């Protein structure tokens, strides 16, 4: 079991900066997801943890010890590749035995461990089958087992479910999660699928363009995104971000979105707003938080998508767009007509219009 610390980690390829100044601590036994779109630097980070890439700067520590100069083969890291990289010219048994043989474990011990892990992973019946041509489900278990059998302190998984049918993905996600529970390793999981990260991870590190944007539990990231990128990336659909202006009338501070309406600000938000230099501000709220019974905001309904238990309403006003997600049993707005709704004050989030950073309240 190992704690991983990434300190000012960076990697450049010539002129291109893949990762810049990343600081992250992954606790012992934690399931940490590195989440972000393609090219955000998540795979680069993981390849450096594994030792496949050498950092351009910064340090990587396992339990306090810097491992940057430790060669790949000696880091004690388990790795599951995106396409599993199973040795297809060998049998399942030989795949499982590979690492043990490479490390000189006596044959008798190898046999015992293979038996134990095969039982655990339900691979007993196919130990002697050639690894080629097996189903993706089995290959995933084999890929994990092949690394797990060496009992590494750290487990790295590089988008292992991206090649799997959507239908299967949920099944395999839960299998993966239960396996992690059983083995108790520190797990780092790279994915671009925010749903995967949200359902599986203890904590999520959201990345974009080589930068770490936010680290937190799924709930934290969902409820209090650090910037507009995280806000829009998390959730399906993501948070609505509207351009607004601050205004003050009587004692009430509010944000007005042109053509849409005005949102009164809670005291906490009012204190947050004092950081702004100008009247412009970005307003965010999640589509699920739309209150049908309320009033205050009006937008034009474009498309109404009914997807079984939920309905997604596409809204627009001028250049501003937003989405609302309503449960199926609620009265639906009519398409091509204006619709009035409200958003509870506590669900409003504000962001700096220039930097996109979330505006946090100073006082409680």
């Amino acid at each position, binding site marked *: 079991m190992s704690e991983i610390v990434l300190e000012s980690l960076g990697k450049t390829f010539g002129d291109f900066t893949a990762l810049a100044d990343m600081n992250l601590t992954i606790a012992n036994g934690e399931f940490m997801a590195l989440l972000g779109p393609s090219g955000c630097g998540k795979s680069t980070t993981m390849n450096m943890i*594994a*030792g*496949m890439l050498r950092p351009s700067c910064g340090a990587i520590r396992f339990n306090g010890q810097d491992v940057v100069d430790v060669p*790949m*083969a*000696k*880091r004690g*890291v*388990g*790795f599951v*590749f995106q*396409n599993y*990289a*199973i*040795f297809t*010219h*060998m049998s399942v048994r030989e795949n499982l035995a*590979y*690492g043990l*043989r*490479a*490390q000189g474990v006596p044959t008798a011990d190898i046999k015992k461990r293979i038996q134990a892990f095969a039982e655990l992973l339900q691979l007993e019946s196919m130990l002697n089958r050639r690894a080629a041509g097996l189903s993706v489900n089995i290959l995933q278990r084999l890929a994990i087992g*092949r*690394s797990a059998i*060496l009992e590494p302190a750290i487990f790295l998984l590089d988008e292992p479910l991206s090649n799997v049918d959507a239908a299967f993905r949920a099944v395999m996600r839960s299998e993966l999660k239960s396996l992690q529970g059983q083995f108790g390793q520190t797990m780092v999981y790279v994915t671009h699928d925010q749903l995967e990260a949200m359902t599986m991870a203890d904590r999520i590190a959201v990345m974009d363009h080589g930068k770490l944007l936010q680290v937190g539990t799924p709930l934290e990231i969902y409820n209090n995104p650090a910037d507009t990128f995280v806000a829009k990336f998390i959730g399906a659909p993501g948070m609505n971000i509207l351009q607004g202006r601050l205004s003050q009338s009587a004692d009430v501070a509010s944000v007005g979105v042109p053509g849409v309406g005005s949102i009164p600000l809670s005291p906490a938000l009012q204190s947050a707003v004092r950081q702004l230099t100008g009247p412009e501000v970005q307003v965010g709220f999640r589509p699920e938080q739309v209150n049908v019974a309320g009033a205050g905001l009006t937008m034009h309904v474009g498309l109404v998508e009914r997807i079984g238990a939920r309905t997604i309403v596409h809204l627009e006003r001028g250049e501003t767009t937003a989405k609302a997600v309503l449960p199926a049993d609620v009265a639906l707005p009519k398409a091509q007509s204006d619709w009035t709704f409200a958003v509870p004050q506590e669900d409003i989030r504000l962001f700096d219009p220039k930097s996109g950073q979330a505006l946090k309240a100073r006082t409680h």
Partner: protein
Amino acid sequence: MTNVSTMTPVADQPEAPAKSGARLGLWLTLPAQLLVLFIALFPILMQVYISLTDWSPLDGIPWWRAHELWIGLLNYSDLIADSRFWGAMWRTLFVMAVCVPVQFLLGLGLAVLFVDDFRGKRVLYSTLLVPMMVVPAVAGYMFFMLFQSGGPVNDLLSIFTSDPVRIAWLSDPDLALIAVMVADIWQWTPLMFLILLAGMISVPQDQQMAAILLGASWWRRFFTIVLPRMKSIIIIALAIRVIEIFKIFDTLFIMTGGGPGVATETISVYIYKVTQQELIWSYVAAIALAILIVLSVVSVFAIKRMQRGQET
């Protein structure tokens, strides 16, 4: 050929290609088929015919009257007892047994060195390929000169000894064979290198990475992952080289003419001599047919095995 038209309605298009194209396809393959037939059918029949006679162009009669010198299967029984033939066969197989493994190991070693990227790789790669592009007859002359008693090979060896080395390579029966093998290894190792490198590059990178992460050393990876996955390519490379070396002629003949004596006489050289110098063409036909039959059987076996190998 211009009367083949595809003026079919669009709806029929998916099936049309096979039907309308079949005729054009037949015409297209016709020239090749004719050439193959020409070179395969008549020669075989002719050889079968002649091999059963005692004909030679010196006899003054045209070949189709060779039946006047009918001797049945005598040529074949003579062949079995022909010690010079078996000597040539043995020599050919010996050369094969030495040169092919050497070329394979050298080629494999070079391929290992060329798998990574390094500075100057492309230029060095091109220069390594040059020997196999040298016209074999010219290579024969080159090595003939190199192995002269006053030549560069001896000069090079003289660096390591006190007295100047003046070995007459091509006049010594054993050394001549060695010289010939050196020439073949020089010329054809690049071919092995070329093919094996192509095969080595195609071994999946991620499987090798996975092996490293599981703690495998370079040697273990090489023998458990790289080589096994190169199996079919290795077989192809070896097969090509074995086939070609069986036919060895140009370089060798110009270097030694098959000599001294018969010291470097391989199958092709022997057949050539009987053909051009002793002119017993009926006997040569028998030899040729015997070889053809044996090689056909072997190749059918090999191809069947390869096809089975591809299905698994």
